[in-house]
């Protein structure tokens, strides 16, 4: 993974000093809250319902064991012993104080971490595919380009006061595990007819109030033009994005209002002026960054692992776990392990400091000291020897990190919701907990198969409900929590926004509604169909009918 050199470290240290000064000026009254708020947001510090919340950046979801230990320490020392992994591969601490935040940032800086630009109207954490570097279908490791974009976008003087937040995602494989189609800019690596690898550039995707699937503005962009092209897009957005209406200021609104053709033309015209200039990426630089993401010291192993096969036969709980939580690795004899942060009835995406420390140790022991964070709020150990899976599983099971539900209905994505968030209209965590308990039976879960349930506590859609196979949106109806259900959303390369089934359900009724949806699917599905396949075949009608039959 990327390692800071003196320059990276200096910038992060100077940022800590700058923020320390800003906090001091705020407390001394030299800055009003209105003036201070954008400054603290650009350091990821929110004022939420209970306390300040700090969103720490985990660039493209990759952590070293040392960094994870530091996060555990911060949870212990400055918070209430836990952290929350988010849908943008970051981590949030819910109980920090303003006064201590400069110290937290200094501690983060000591392990090459920060909270820079994790909020505010600037370019945010560039997210990637959580199987980067190990997936068989990958063309190149997307994290190379995420790191290049990260540096270009950090403290970018022209783009620090954009009309609104700006999110970029990169997938290094044709199969999109990074949800690029619902980002402001999505970059999908693929090969042109000559076999050259480059990017499809998509713009204007997003969720929130007006969910939109991104449009392709350039089918193929050679790698060397990556930064100049991004600069052109951002410049057009900075100049033309709306500043008068908070709800109309994302780039998706701009693309929609001028039309994708005109928008593309504006970008291309600007790009013609700046391409082949000082932002051109030399091949040598790409290779230099690629060096940081070189494969670890894999051993030459056999693809067949008899001990593992035997263990599968001997222990059905282990076998069950490998079915859902273990994915093939491109190297023979290795496996990719997902650690489920979705225990039955638990808070999705939360990890205690003890769990974080333990996972750091497991990473050192089994996975070259590296951990990934997925945008579905789970963790990944990406390079585990298949022969070690049983021992690892036993340990994970002790830690409560081996729930065999990855990709299944109880692998729920949920934002913190009204329990934590000042923006929320309704709670999301308790709904997730109740659904998870209701669907607790693992045999049934496996029978249901792949089903992504995503819950957001408000229209900002941090739970990504629009792209859930079943999406749940919390709303406030006359002071009471109600939940609107959507069906058929998807965040992969065949991205779609879910369809609203009908009137919202009360907090009491929503779990039953989810059950009804699942039962309907089980009744009408054909052989081998996942929920999403069935939905795309039969449409909304059968579900709507069953859900509202009594009315």
């Amino acid at each position, binding site marked *: 993974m990327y390692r800071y050199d003196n320059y990276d470290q200096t910038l992060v240290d100077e940022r800590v000093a700058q923020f320390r000064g800003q906090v001091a000026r705020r*407390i001394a009254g030299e800055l009003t*809250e209105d003036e201070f708020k954008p400054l603290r947001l650009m350091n990821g510090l929110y004022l939420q319902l209970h306390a300040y919340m700090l969103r720490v950046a985990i660039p493209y979801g990759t952590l070293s064991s040392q960094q994870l230990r530091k996060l555990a320490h911060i949870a212990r020392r400055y918070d209430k012993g836990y952290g929350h992994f988010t849908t943008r591969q970051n981590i949030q601490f819910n109980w920090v104080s303003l006064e201590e935040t400069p110290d937290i940032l200094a501690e983060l800086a000591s392990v090459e971490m920060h909270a820079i630009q994790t909020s505010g109207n600037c370019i945010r954490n560039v997210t990637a595919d959580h199987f980067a570097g190990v997936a068989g279908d990958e063309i190149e490791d997307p994290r190379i380009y995420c790191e290049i974009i990260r540096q270009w976008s950090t403290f970018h003087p022209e783009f620090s006061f954009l009309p609104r937040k700006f999110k970029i995602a990169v997938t290094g494989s044709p199969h999109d595990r990074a949800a690029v189609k619902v980002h402001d800019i999505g970059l999908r690596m693929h090969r042109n007819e000559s076999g050259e690898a480059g990017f499809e550039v998509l713009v204007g995707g997003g969720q929130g109030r007006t969910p939109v699937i991104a449009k392709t503005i350039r089918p193929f962009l050679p790698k060397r033009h990556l930064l100049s092209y991004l600069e052109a897009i951002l410049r057009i957005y900075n100049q033309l994005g709306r500043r008068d209406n908070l709800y109309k200021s994302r780039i998706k609104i701009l693309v929609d209002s001028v039309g994708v053709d005109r928008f593309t033309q504006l970008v291309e015209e600007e790009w013609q002026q700046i391409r082949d200039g000082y932002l051109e990426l030399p091949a040598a630089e790409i290779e230099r960054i690629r060096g940081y993401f070189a494969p670890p010291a894999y051993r030459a192993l056999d693809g067949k692992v008899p001990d593992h096969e035997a263990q599968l036969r001997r222990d059905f709980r282990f076998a069950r776990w490998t079915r859902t939580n273990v994915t093939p690795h491109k190297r023979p004899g290795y496996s990719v392990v997902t650690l489920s942060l979705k225990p039955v009835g638990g808070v999705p995406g939360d990890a205690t400091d003890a769990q974080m420390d333990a996972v750091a140790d497991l990473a050192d022991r089994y996975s070259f000291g590296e951990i990934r964070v997925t945008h579905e709020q789970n963790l990944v150990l990406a390079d585990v020897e298949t022969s070690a899976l049983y021992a690892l599983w036993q340990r994970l099971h002790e830690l409560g990190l081996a729930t065999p539900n990855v990709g299944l209905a109880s692998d729920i994505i949920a934002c913190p919701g009204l329990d934590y968030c000042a923006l929320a209209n309704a709670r999301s965590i308790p709904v997730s907990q109740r659904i998870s308990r209701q669907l607790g039976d693992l045999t049934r879960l496996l029978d249901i198969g792949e089903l992504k349930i995503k819950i957001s506590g408000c229209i900002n859609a941090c739970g990504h409900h629009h792209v859930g196979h079943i999406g749940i949106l919390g709303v406030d109806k006359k002071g009471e929590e109600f939940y609107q259900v959507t069906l058929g959303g998807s965040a992969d390369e065949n991205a779609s926004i879910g369809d609203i089934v009908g009137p919202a359900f009360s907090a009491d009724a929503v779990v039953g509604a989810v059950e009804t949806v699942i039962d309907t699917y089980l009744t009408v599905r054909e052989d081998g169909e996942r929920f999403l396949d069935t939905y795309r075949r039969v449409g909304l009608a059968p579900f709507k009918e069953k859900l509202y039959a009594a009315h």
Partner: protein
Amino acid sequence: MALQVVTANRLRDGRVVFLADGEHWVEAIGRSQVAEGETAAAALNAIADRAVAARKVVGPYLIEVIRNGDRLTPKRYREVIRALGPSSHPELGRPETVTAAAQE
């Protein structure tokens, strides 16, 4: 007549606080100074504004409460969560803070 109290977040640590007597801010809602009617509410707001200027709190606002014996609980559920803690982490909750006798 609606009963109201003023709530805010403490500047330095962001914790939820309520305006009690003597311009003190406390974490226990049970100790809030209760305003009945517009005039009393406006008086509380004035105190709150001074506290903002003095950098004690940020974002103060009035909330409606229900009095039940010696207990004060917010009317809106969002404010219940703020006063008592996240429902998802009951071990972090502070249900005892609704009483007038609550510790600060």
